[in-house]
């Protein structure tokens, strides 16, 4: 198709739409019907709304970056990196909205230097491990039944994962390798206390969990 034929074909179509009042013409008619004084206000009003929309979107997207009391920041005051810490019981409020029927332990990780090895012992009841980035994005979770008995896994940054030799991945079939999208983040280990009075026993069992930088 030549350029000229394309031009010829579109021109009549353009004329026919100009006959019937389109949405633009109708809007213009409404605009004309508004008295002159409020018409002066319409443009600033539209501008305010568009700008407010932009401000809203930018501030929502920036929130995880700018937040002052995110989970990662709260836990930074509690524990050094790559060390597992048992959290006090829910209600004493380090993290909001935690299930009071669970005993939780956290480990703030930093993969800049070395990968992390996480080991969670069997507690005899539901036990799970969840991973979050430093901005609070949940990226991986596993429970005791899905993992077998003891949860044992390696957490690697994307660069460390890429550097992992191919054959090693195949031979270590029983080794779980998790890739973290960020270099820092949080490991949350939670064990279910079926009744209130087994809580201390579950707490003791969870103390055996570990989170260490590999050598």
């Amino acid at each position, binding site marked *: 198709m030549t350029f000229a034929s394309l031009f010829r074909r579109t021109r009549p179509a353009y004329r026919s739409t100009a006959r019937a009042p389109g949405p633009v013409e109708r809007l213009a008619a409404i605009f004309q019907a508004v008295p002159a004084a409020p018409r002066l206000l319409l443009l*600033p009003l539209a*501008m*305010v*709304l*568009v*700008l*407010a*929309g*932009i*401000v*809203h979107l*930018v*501030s*929502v*997207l920036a*929130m*995880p970056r700018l*937040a002052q*009391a*995110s*989970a990662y*920041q*709260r836990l930074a005051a509690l524990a050094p990196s790559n060390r597992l810490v048992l959290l006090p019981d*829910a*209600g004493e*409020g380090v*993290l*909001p*909205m*935690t*299930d*009071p*029927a*669970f005993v939780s332990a956290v480990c703030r990780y930093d993969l800049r230097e070395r990968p992390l090895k996480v080991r969670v012992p069997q507690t005899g009841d*539901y036990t*799970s491990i*969840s991973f*979050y980035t430093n*901005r*609070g*994005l*949940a*990226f*991986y*979770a*596993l*429970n005791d*039944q*899905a993992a077998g008995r003891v949860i044992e896994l390696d957490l690697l940054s994307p660069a460390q994962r890429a550097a992992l030799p191919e054959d090693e991945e195949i031979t270590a079939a029983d080794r779980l390798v998790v890739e973290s*999208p960020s270099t820092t983040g*949080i490991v*949350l280990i*939670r064990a*279910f206390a*079926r*009744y*209130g009075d087994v809580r201390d026993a579950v707490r003791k069992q969870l103390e055996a969990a570990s989170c260490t930088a590999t050598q």
Partner: protein
Amino acid sequence: MRLLTLATTLAAAAAIGLGATYFAVTHSRGMDIVRLGAWQGWPRSGTTQADPYAAAAFARTGELPLELADGLLFLADHDTAGAPLDGRCDIRILGALPQSRLWTLTLTDDKGALVPNAAERHGFTSAELVYEPDGSINVSLSPRARAGNWLPTGARGRLRVALRLYDAPFSFASGAQDEGQLPRIVTERCP
């Protein structure tokens, strides 16, 4: 004069935009809301597909959302009829629960803090509860002691109930959400 108009426009835009953001992060836990009777769930908030509103809300509160591979959280701050849950009333949670490895039911105030009480009873786990003969649950929320599965409300104004289903083979993919899947919440009597 023109500069003044520009300044007013910018100030108004900033105020409206930030106001909308504040409202969103204090009232929402994400866009992917699933309503089952009185309960609300956000299945994608605990996954890598969490939307910006969920991420913003959790960043502000410091909450680590329950991962979907771990469990599923449902919240209720209204009864099935639509009235807000009032701690001065007698409230009952009745009905069958979906299949799961275990579940917990937790009573909090409207800000998510546990309701303090002498018995230190803040909820039930699937192991503690006394079930009805047909396997359904019947939990009573009341400021005064009740026979059976009773949770003290401490006569607090507004309440929120959190139901967490762990290791549940639950799917939202079909979009067919049956109101009978989660228990009903009934306000029986108010002083």
